[in-house]
């Protein structure tokens, strides 16, 4: 208890210096936490993907479509439970700044595949019934103050023209990390209009969203589907939803790596600042350490004092940084909700914050503790007076 009291008193002997160092650690931990949250958000689609969902796309590239005729063939592959035709619609609401993902799907087969989308039964039925109907996530509904029955107009980019949809259903995410910014429309409605305006683009599907009866069958089903369409005009590539998502992320891997690097650099910088603080502190107290050694205190006691002081400063900074991370992340998420639909601070991020602070505290104390232990008592006493 006495030693703990002494450590605390030592830590706040130079109040300004200590509080500045704590502020630095707080900002570093906050920055580290936010950057780690950006990375975890980047991978959130992968984390929330299901092991029983597969995606079949054109093996050349996602931008090439697949024939509608594949749907029935896929449905008959053993192990396949649901098949939904799916297509990136790419419509723009108001202007490009108001981005949200929008897909044309087959509602009857799509909704059973996404149990994480909670839709009231009556709304679900209304959405399935109305070919011009749309299903939207809670976040965008709240953002644009939409109500059931509202007509929402999207400007087509891939499919030209203005497209009007009636909001028939709103979904809530089952999990905290579920993306609540999706806007879903009927693929049949899209196809109907294409038949009139661009017949050569009709009866084509962007990709098939497939549900299998068991995760164990995912590999087997994938191989069967791809084998079935080998040497056809549109060969397929079937992969798990997770692999599909990772494929997307790999396109932006350089950015993710850069963010990771910056997050570690932030910690290295604060480590240097903290080490400087502890070096100054220890240098000023070499006389006191010599006195304590004279009184019989051992190297272990001095190490406890120096490491303890360093850890207290680091952990106070860490606690403040972690506490600040939540409101700042919330504000950050709100400001960038177009790009980060679920910007939540993960528990792992907090553990990483604490780990980083412990590392900073320990590393910063190593050299000062070593020097304090090594100093000869007579030399230390000469520094006083």
């Amino acid at each position, binding site marked *: *208890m*006495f*030693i703990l009291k*002494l450590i605390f*008193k*030592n830590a706040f*002997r130079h109040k300004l210096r200590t509080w500045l160092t704590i502020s630095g650690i707080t900002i570093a931990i906050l920055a580290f936490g936010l950057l780690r949250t950006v990375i975890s958000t980047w991978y959130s689609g992968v984390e929330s993907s299901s092991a029983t969902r597969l995606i079949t796309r054109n093996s050349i590239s996602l931008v090439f479509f697949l024939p509608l005729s594949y749907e029935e063939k896929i449905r008959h592959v053993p192990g396949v439970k649901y098949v939904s035709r799916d297509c990136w619609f790419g419509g723009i609401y108001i202007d490009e700044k108001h981005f949200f993902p929008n897909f044309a799907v087959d509602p009857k087969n799509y909704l059973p595949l996404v149990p994480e989308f909670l839709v009231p039964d009556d709304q679900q039925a209304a959405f399935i019934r109305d070919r011009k109907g749309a299903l939207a996530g809670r976040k965008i509904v709240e953002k644009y103050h939409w109500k059931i029955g509202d007509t929402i107009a999207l400007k087509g980019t891939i499919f030209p023209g203005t497209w009007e949809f009636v909001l028939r259903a709103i979904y809530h995410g089952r999990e905290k990390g579920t993306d609540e910014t999706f806007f879903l429309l009927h693929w049949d409605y899209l196809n109907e209009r294409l038949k009139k305006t661009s017949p050569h683009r009709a009866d084509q599907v962007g990709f098939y969203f497939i549900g299998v009866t068991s995760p164990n069958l995912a590999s087997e089903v994938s191989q069967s589907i791809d084998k079935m369409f080998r040497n056809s005009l549109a060969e397929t590539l079937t992969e798990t939803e997770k692999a599909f998502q990772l494929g997307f992320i790999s396109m932006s891997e350089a950015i993710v790596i850069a963010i990771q690097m910056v997050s570690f650099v932030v910690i290295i910088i604060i480590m240097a600042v903290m080490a400087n603080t502890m070096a100054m502190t220890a240098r000023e107290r070499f*006389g*006191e350490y010599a*006195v*304590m*050694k*004279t*009184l*019989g*205190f*051992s*190297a272990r006691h001095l190490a406890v004092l120096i490491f303890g002081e360093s850890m207290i400063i680091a952990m106070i900074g860490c606690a403040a940084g972690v506490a600040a991370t939540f409101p700042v992340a919330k504000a950050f998420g709100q400001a960038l909700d177009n790009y980060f639909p679920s910007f939540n601070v993960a528990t792992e991020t907090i553990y990483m914050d604490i780990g980083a602070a412990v590392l900073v505290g320990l590393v910063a104390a190593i050299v000062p503790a070593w020097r304090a232990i090594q100093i*000869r*008592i*007579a030399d230390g*006493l000469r520094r*006083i*007076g």
Partner: protein
Amino acid sequence: MNSEAQAIVEIRNLSKSYRRGSQIVPVLNKLTFDIGKGEFLALMGPSGSGKSTLLNLIAGIDKADSGTIIIGGIDITTLSESELAHWRANNVGFIFQFYNLIPVLSAFENVELPLLLTGLSRRERAEHVNVALSIVGLADRMEHYPGQLSGGQQQRVAIARAIITDPVILVADEPTGDLDRVSAREILDLMERLNAESGKTIVMVTHDPRAAEKAHVIKHLEKGVLNVHPETHF
């Protein structure tokens, strides 16, 4: 040495030199003398004569090049660093010129500090500290911090810290060097009282002849050789 007193410190052929660059500077040259139990010894001599070095060697905070220092039957020149630390904690009380109190600890806590190395309970430590601070006349200032005390009061706290573990020997390096005349006299009176009433063996380095007068034995160190002062009184 008082011929009637039993030797508590036996120094034999003690030599110490320092390295200054490539040069070796001898400080102590084969010193041999004893310090009797309960003796109050003053070490005098010009600056650089090796008085503080000798004091440090007796206190076990520096290592000799050769020779032996036997204190209370233990040859401290053979002890390792950790053994020496343990030995110092139990056998030596230190009084420094600049008091060397920990500024963030109160007078009570500064005196309590050496007792942390003992197995005493918190209550037992408090009892010891109260007694020690009463002896030095600072029972009413125990909650004060060093910065709130005068130089003389700080030195009395340092003396309380030195005697708290009931050491075999007290070593004092210029204990009055940073004090005014009145405070210096109070400190010397206190040390004299500790020597007379508690039988503490005291080895004091001083430049001040008035301080040295309080000692039973005055030894002069010059060029690494020790001479007994003619004014030595027992």
